[in-house]
């Protein structure tokens, strides 16, 4: 447990270090690019001094690392020159709300679909679920997003096409802006989980204790929700950990379709504007979310399956 935690911290340090040095090796001079029109060699040198870019790479790294530990990620070098931490603090709740809602919607679809196709194996229902899962896995999330906008925002006008409203504005404004992007992100995730639940449930339903449960005279409902499903969920949970990563990378793309200024949009805009401090900060936060969601899944796994805790 402690070792796992230390491992996660080491991974984060490695990522931070890699990001720092890789961005320093970028071909081209970001300062020269920044001052493209306005700067002669003197201005460029002054700017570099101001940003500390004239010192040795390792001194820069030490300073950057120290600042990062104090929660200072520098300031944007583009447009408003806002502090990177402020930009990220505004973006994080958006991406997390979006991913969480996508997660919930995906489970609402996947759990019944998985149970249905496992209990009615090889029926028309099973085939339909399997085909829909294939479609869900093959549809690019940004395309699904565009289709949803065409149908539900442009034609039916049920939901807003773009933007974000914080939860403080009320539950419905918040939810209504998130439903379409969450469905776009959650679909592929839901397909993976439904397939996983199906195969895992089929495995469990074959086991001896299922026969015992039936012999005891338990109702099918009790057998499914009391015995079969909890056991079938164990392998599913590890996949949820992997698939959570899918939700975040989905959010990175889909936020750009719906003009939601979450981590994904901040990251992509940063790249397009060559705003390195912002890119660096966004990469760090996105990476941290992956590392710690993996950690949480590992811990959850131990809670659900006592055999793993004992080992």
């Amino acid at each position: 447990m402690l070792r796992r935690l230390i491992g996660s911290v080491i991974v984060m340090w490695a990522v931070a270090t890699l990001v720092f040095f890789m961005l320093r090796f970028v071909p081209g001079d970001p300062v020269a690019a920044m001052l493209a029109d306005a700067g002669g060699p003197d201005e460029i040198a002054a700017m570099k001094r101001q940003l500390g870019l004239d010192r040795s790479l390792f001194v820069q790294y030490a300073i950057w690392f120290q600042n990062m530990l104090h929660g200072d990620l520098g300031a944007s070098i583009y447009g408003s020159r806002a502090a990177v931490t402020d930009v990220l603090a505004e973006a994080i709740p958006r991406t997390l709300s979006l991913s969480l809602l996508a997660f919930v919607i995906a489970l609402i679809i996947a759990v019944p679909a998985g149970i249905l196709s496992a209990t009615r194996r090889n029926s028309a229902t099973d085939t339909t679920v399997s085909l829909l899962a294939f479609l869900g896995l093959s549809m690019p999330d940004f395309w699904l997003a565009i289709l949803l906008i065409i149908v539900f925002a442009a034609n039916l006008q049920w939901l807003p096409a773009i933007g974000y409203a914080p939860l403080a504005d009320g539950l419905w404004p918040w939810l209504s802006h998130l439903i379409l992007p969450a469905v776009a992100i959650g679909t592929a995730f839901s397909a993976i989980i439904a397939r996983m639940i199906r195969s895992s449930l089929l495995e469990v339903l074959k086991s001896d204790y299922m026969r015992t449960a039936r012999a005891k005279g338990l109702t099918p409902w009790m057998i499914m929700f009391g015995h079969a499903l909890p056991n079938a969920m164990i392998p599913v949970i590890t996949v949820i950990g992997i698939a959570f990563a899918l939700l975040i990378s989905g959010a990175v793309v889909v936020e750009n379709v719906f003009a939601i200024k979450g981590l994904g949009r901040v990251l992509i805009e940063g790249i397009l504007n060559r705003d390195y401090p912002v890119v660096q900060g966004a990469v760090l936060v996105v990476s941290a979310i992956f590392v710690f969601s993996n950690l949480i899944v590992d811990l959850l796994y131990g809670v659900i399956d006592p055999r793993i805790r004992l080992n």
Partner: protein
Amino acid sequence: MTDTTQNPETDPLPRRRSRFRATLVRDRKAQAGLAVLILFVIGAVFAPLLSPFDPNAMTLDMMSGLSWTHPLGTDDLGRDLLSRILHGTRVSLFIGISTVGIALAIGIALGLVAGYFGGWLDLLIMRYIDLQWAFPNFIIAVYLVAVFGTGLLNVIVALSLAFIDDFARVARSMTLSLREEQYVDAARTLGFSKGRTLFIHILPNAVAPIIVQATVSVSYAILGEASLSFLGLGVDAYTPTWGLILADGRGFITQAWWLGVFPGLAIMLVVLAINFVGDWLRDALDVRQAVGD
């Protein structure tokens, strides 16, 4: 059962071939997938001949709907959508296949070396692979494009590097189990070099899971390229790619739905076809869940 003419132990190739045929005949999804893939390959190869117009030629016939002259309509600059999608097929398939080819070569080399030699080399390689494994391939590709910049070559490099860990893991786990086989022991005892043992004796027997992984990866690479292009991190602003056509048309989807529908349909059909074929290969080659996505 008493077939003496064909001993499966000594004659595995015909057996494998008949298994391919037997599973394909039953698998309608795989048949459909193969047919769609063949159509797309033909479309890509003969794009200049099949396209009714120059994909970049602007006309005054802007955002006109589906017609005999423009079967899939035109975009906001009067460019023919069918011609643009056909040319986009070339980019998508080229990037999908070349990316996986590079990732496969590097990943397998790393996996074989790590699995066969063990020790500190294994530790070093696998620490890195595990680090990369913690992140989704697409996010790694975005990070790398942020560093290298956009453009055809950079997109291929970024996507290839992003997929290395998948192949390295498959190759390593296969090598670890094959290393203990008797015929590998025999090769070592006979004094064959390590390189020869690795490439002549171990690699061919690890091919099945690698083929399945490669098939799955091509579909992910195509999706990855489309996503990068859609975000403006792709090849360039002038080469028509499926992701870029969608990004260009995004602002006009309320007036011209075809701009939002057909390029995405092309992506979905290709990816779906590859997934169907991948599923069949997994079955035909008898590869269990050893392959991760």
